[in-house]
């Protein structure tokens, strides 16, 4: 996000609170979030896809909501009005093509009105059919499966290249210039994980009853659209429903987090980016000390960039009375890898624990498998999935395995030596020594992992790894 976009986002959140304290604040946030879904989507080379991908996201969300919501609720006046307003916004976006000579609110010119009408008819038909299928459990399972498959296609370079080629041909464009970046769908990884959370909670009977307006606002909430955090729907809706007045704004929190966020993201991270490890500079550096500087610069850059963005998202959301969950808690100061992962991208790891790690561990605890093998398996599966969530490539897989193995080894170390270490660390000086040496070791381990995260192929990553140790 750019500085003007952040400033506008903060202004709109404040405006919503300034104008309305009750239900209408929710309506404004719903409207802003829907518009942001289109406005923040970057331009795509496949014609009109920067309009159609957000439209598809909206269709998916509305269809799934209709599929898991009782029919009489779907057809309530409030929900029909929300659907009509969403359709109106889409048509207004289409109108900008006629009114303005240049793209307005969308990255490129919006499609012609007749196509938007056609899309709305298809959307309405889909929602209608979805609401008539009276099998919400199966709908939630099928929806989860479809979202996972869609994520795999979008995140694997070869599959997204093939999809881009196919879509280009269908669109009357040349397939030769297709690239795997043609389908960059803003925020979809986060939207999909929020959706899966609601679908799985619905199956367990734990999903609270939410209106279409609340559901859409939760999924596309604009401060958290492009980079999270992944909130939980019941927590988000509680804030959204509570009256919120201008006098309740916590200016100390907002000023602190937004100043910190701007400083981290635009000063620290952007400066570090000049020397941070990248596919472009990895092969240029020949001496080990420089290679270490590049690697440490990247480790700090990714932290300041991501946590700075989270600070900004939390600050903007607070202006509208929404308390998004924290995503970082000083991860690089943690004394071991387990605590690092309790403090890094916390909303994603919480999600993985709730829907993958805990159910898997619970199921395996009922078998006769030895404890160490269950820990190894569950840590490897969870961390591999976190790796693949970033992209279905060999290097992200290795990055996930690196961390899964690290968590397993730390667990075994603790199991074997915890009693002895606790007995040894009887004085404050020894405790401090343990904490500092643990943090240094953990940072080193995490930094070495980043090589696989930032470099695209195992060959380039290995070559850089050798260079770090002066072997190449």
């Amino acid at each position, binding site marked *: 996000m750019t500085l003007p976009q952040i400033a506008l986002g903060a202004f709109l959140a404040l405006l919503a609170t300034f104008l309305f304290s009750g239900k209408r604040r929710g309506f404004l946030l719903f409207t802003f979030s829907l518009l942001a879904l289109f406005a923040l989507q970057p331009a795509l080379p496949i014609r009109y896809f920067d309009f159609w991908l957000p439209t598809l996201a909206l269709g998916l969300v509305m269809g799934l909501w209709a599929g898991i919501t009782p029919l009489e609720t779907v057809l309530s006046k409030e929900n029909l009005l929300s659907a009509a307003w969403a359709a109106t916004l889409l048509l207004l976006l289409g109108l900008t093509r006629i009114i303005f000579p240049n793209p307005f609110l969308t990255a490129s010119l919006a499609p012609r009105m007749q196509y938007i009408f056609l899309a709305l008819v298809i959307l309405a038909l889909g929602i209608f059919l979805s609401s008539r299928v009276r099998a919400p459990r199966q709908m939630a399972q099928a929806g989860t499966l479809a979202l996972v498959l869609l994520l795999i296609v979008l995140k694997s370079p070869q599959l997204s290249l093939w999809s881009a080629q196919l879509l280009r041909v269908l669109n009357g464009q040349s397939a030769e210039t297709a690239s795997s970046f043609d389908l960059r769908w803003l925020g979809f990884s986060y939207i999909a994980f929020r959706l899966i959370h609601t679908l799985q909670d619905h199956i367990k009977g734990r999903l609270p009853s939410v209106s279409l307006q609340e559901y859409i606002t939760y999924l596309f909430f604009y401060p958290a659209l492009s980079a999270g955090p992944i909130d939980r729907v019941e927590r988000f809706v509680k804030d959204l429903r509570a009256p919120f007045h201008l006098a309740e704004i916590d200016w100390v929190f907002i000023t602190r987090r937004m100043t910190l966020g701007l400083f981290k993201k635009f000063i620290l991270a952007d400066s570090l980016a000049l020397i941070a490890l990248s596919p472009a500079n990895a092969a240029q550096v020949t001496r080990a000390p420089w290679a270490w500087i590049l690697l440490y610069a990247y480790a700090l850059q990714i932290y300041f960039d991501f946590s700075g963005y989270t600070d900004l998202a939390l600050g903007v959301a607070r202006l509208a009375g929404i308390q998004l969950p924290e995503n970082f808690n000083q991860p690089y100061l943690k004394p071991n890898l387990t605590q690092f992962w309790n403090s890094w991208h916390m909303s994603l790891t919480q999600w993985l624990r709730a829907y993958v790690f805990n159910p898997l561990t619970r199921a395996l605890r009922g078998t006769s498998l030895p404890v160490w093998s269950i820990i190894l398996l569950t840590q490897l599966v969870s961390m591999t999935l976190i790796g693949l969530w970033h992209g279905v490539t060999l290097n992200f897989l290795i990055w996930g395995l690196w961390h899964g193995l690290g968590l397993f080894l730390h667990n075994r170390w603790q199991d074997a030596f915890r*009693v002895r270490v606790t007995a040894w660390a009887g004085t404050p000086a020894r405790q401090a020594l343990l904490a500092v040496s643990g943090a240094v070791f953990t940072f080193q381990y995490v930094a070495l992992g980043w090589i696989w995260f930032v470099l695209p192929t195992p060959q380039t990553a290995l070559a850089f790894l050798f260079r770090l140790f002066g072997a190449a």
Partner: protein
Amino acid sequence: MTQEIIQPIATFIAAEILKQPKRSIQPAEALISSGLIDSFSLVDLGLFVEETFGVRIEDTELNAETFDTLEQLARLIQSRQ
């Protein structure tokens, strides 16, 4: 009542998870956010609570936000009994 719930859980954590049977755990001591209990042991703790007190702790509830101390866990159990 709360003490009757806290005691067996504290004993279980000290003996089975921390492998330090003599370690005393305070009712307000942070268990999860402090790193005392890792994610694997947390599932074990959940299973122990379910078997001992006959209440269900969902997979989505095994986190520091739902309960981080013995006191909070005891309150959660009481609310479901």
